[in-house]
């Protein structure tokens, strides 16, 4: 997936995560994660974000995420939505029950 612009999804409300995606030419996925549960779940959140980017075929991007205790499904949905918006595709195929 080809990223065209900076985009954001989610909020900084409790149990949500706000994900900002900025296109990059190179350098892989650079992730800046801030989380209220960094010690407990930081690595897991990072893993979910990276997996989501990989599944959508995004190889280079700056992803800034501010997490307020979101569940995996939320992290996945917000990351996906931000990436689709950055690619200017609002018609992502959504799956239920992953």
């Amino acid at each position, binding site marked *: 997936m080809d990223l065209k612009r*900076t*985009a*954001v999804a989610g*909020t*900084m*409300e*409790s149990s949500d995560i*706000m994900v*900002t995606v*900025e296109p990059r030419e190179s350098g892989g996925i*650079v992730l*800046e994660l*801030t989380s*209220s549960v960094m010690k407990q779940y930081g690595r897991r959140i990072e893993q979910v974000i990276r997996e989501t980017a990989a599944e959508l075929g995004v190889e280079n991007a*700056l992803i*800034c*995420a*501010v997490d*307020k205790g979101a569940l995996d499904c939320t992290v996945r949905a917000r990351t996906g939505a931000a990436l689709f918006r950055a690619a200017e595709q609002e018609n992502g195929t959504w799956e239920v029950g992953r």
Partner: protein
Amino acid sequence: MRPDLQGTGLIAHLITHLQQEAISRGANSLFLYTKPENRRQFAELGFSQVAGTERVLLMEDRRGGFAAWASDIQDARAHGTIGCLAANCDPMTLGHRYLIERAAAQCDTLYLLVVSEDRSAVPAAHRRLMVEQAAGDLDNVIVAGTGRYLISSASFPDYFLKEKTEAGTVWCGLDIAVFCRLAEVLGISRRFVGTEPLCPVTAAYNRAMAEALPRAGVELVEIPRLERNGVPISATAVRGLIAAGRWREIRPLVPGAVYDYFSNEENRSLFLRRCSDFGKTGQIITQETGGR
């Protein structure tokens, strides 16, 4: 914020909205100013500190933003005594050239930072290009930009609002704090400025630096300005001549590359257009000296 609303997550709500709004308007990242005691609260919302004084912090929503800028400037050729000179060069004059030469002679490597903020009469990219052309023969000079961090509307808003500013209230502490952080990363031990007899904003900036830089291990070196017929060569005078349609008269005041640039009619009309655009909104830099 009203005390009864503190702790309700209103700030998170507000920042979320601001960031969404900023991105929808094409601003990809945000700076914020806050009091030092609020650092942690904003850190939890993804902001990290660029620089701070006892009274105010400058934070940004990209953790690696400052570091990326500093490493862009950093040059592998830098060695020995490393100096820095920051200038707007709107446009570059022989006064700037003299200042750069004198500074370069007093250190092994000189970082020459050209103001990146595009709020002057000559477009930022053109100012930078002319500096590269007119200082390219000095082989220990590394030309880079001040980015969004130094002498920018984030770190030093007064610089771009000179008419409204009183010398006594110039707010340059943050800019100096940003510079001190950059100096540490790049190993800068000398900062060069031109003496400033005319512009109160720059004079106040120089005074504040003279006080603050030694505490960060940086020596401030003031270089007297180059004069011609008893008058300091200034970019203000050069701009005045071009604006008055007397562009040919700038020849003895500017490097060849700058004269060539203004020999082009398209560049001159762009200059005049920008002068009046910025003039209307009070954003034009009305005073400039060899020090900047």
